[in-house]
């Protein structure tokens, strides 16, 4: 097998550089609660989600957490890992462990349902508040709109469109922490993809919805969202686009 490392079930614990157990402290409770410690066997290529699943299946079946796809598509498994919001299914323990310790909590800036499960309702309510719904102007009797994928507007929308709604950006945003009304990076990013959608007919009211004290103008460009977005998106860039778009609207319109 040459230099290809082999990991049979028996030799995993003996691999050099791999401490045999992880010390994992996990938030238990809701708003009130405490961290509970678990010892979890270390595995090669182990993800943080693997660790949580091991605890729930082998150590404490009452642990609550959320996941679905396990492959970075659904956006449901985000948690706070050693102080930083991350998607846990694609976060390898190797990359985030500190001296053999993992500290897992629910996402910040959201109410806690139980243990590692955050209540995502405020997060998605803000997508609605930012008018994140597509508003078409055509009927089914009309022909499709032809959109050139190379057009500037479409490329700008495409750059922001792969959001999976995991909430990592929202949990990492300082402005959300300071102003609970702030719509947050994901909702504003979604609004921007629609502002750049030439088919959408709800632009003026959307731009009014994303301006204001709770909107794009509150962004401080700290870029935590952009740094931590697991999909590599830049909500900061989208929000900057919204600032320009709302400014143009404010300068042009008579009365909204």
């Amino acid at each position, binding site marked *: 097998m040459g230099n290809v490392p082999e990991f049979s079930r028996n030799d995993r614990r003996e691999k050099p550089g791999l401490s045999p157990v992880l010390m994992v402290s996990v938030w238990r409770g809701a708003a009130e609660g405490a961290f509970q410690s678990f010892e979890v066997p270390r595995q090669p290529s182990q993800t943080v989600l693997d660790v949580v699943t091991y605890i729930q299946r082998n150590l404490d079946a009452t642990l609550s957490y959320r996941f679905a796809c396990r492959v970075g598509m659904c956006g449901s498994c985000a948690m706070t890992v050693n102080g930083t919001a991350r998607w846990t299914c694609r976060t390898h323990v190797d990359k985030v462990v500190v001296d053999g310790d993992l500290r897992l909590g629910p996402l910040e800036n959201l109410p806690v349902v139980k243990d590692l499960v955050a209540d995502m309702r405020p997060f998605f309510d803000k997508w609605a508040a930012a008018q994140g719904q597509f508003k078409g102007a055509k009927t089914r009797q009309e022909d499709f709109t032809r959109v050139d994928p190379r057009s500037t507007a479409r490329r700008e929308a495409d750059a922001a469109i792969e959001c999976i709604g995991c909430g990592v950006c929202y949990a990492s945003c300082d*402005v959300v922490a*300071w*102003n609970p009304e702030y719509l947050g990076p994901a909702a504003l990013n979604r609004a921007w993809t629609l502002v750049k959608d030439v088919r959408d007919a709800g632009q003026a009211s959307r*731009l*009014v*919805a994303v*301006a*204001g*004290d709770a*909107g794009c*103008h*509150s962004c401080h460009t700290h870029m935590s969202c952009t740094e931590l977005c697991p999909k590599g998106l830049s909500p900061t860039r989208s929000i900057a686009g919204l*600032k320009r778009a*709302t*400014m143009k*609207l*404010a*300068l042009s*319109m008579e009365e*909204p």
Partner: protein
Amino acid sequence: MSARREATLWLAQRGTAMILAACVVVHLATIIFAVRGGLTAAEILERTRGSVAWGAFYSVFVIASAVHGAIGLRTVAAEWLGFRGDAAEVTVTFIGFALTVLGLRAVVAVVGG
């Protein structure tokens, strides 16, 4: 309308930031130039007294600072103190005017007379 107000204030904040960037560069360069061989009130007043150019420059500087500072304080008050709404608007507007008056008074003092 809140959205238009926010957009306008954002534009004012960015616009005054650009003006301030230029003003600060001129201001710092002037300081470095002026302190060669010591600095005296007489020397400063000799440069500024009756100078329309310096009067205009510092007036722009003062107004841009007052606008920029007041908008910035509005955000600080909202985010750090939770101080929002009409009372906050009135307070920061007053601070902006106060900074303008005090600053222009200083400009008149060094340019006029």
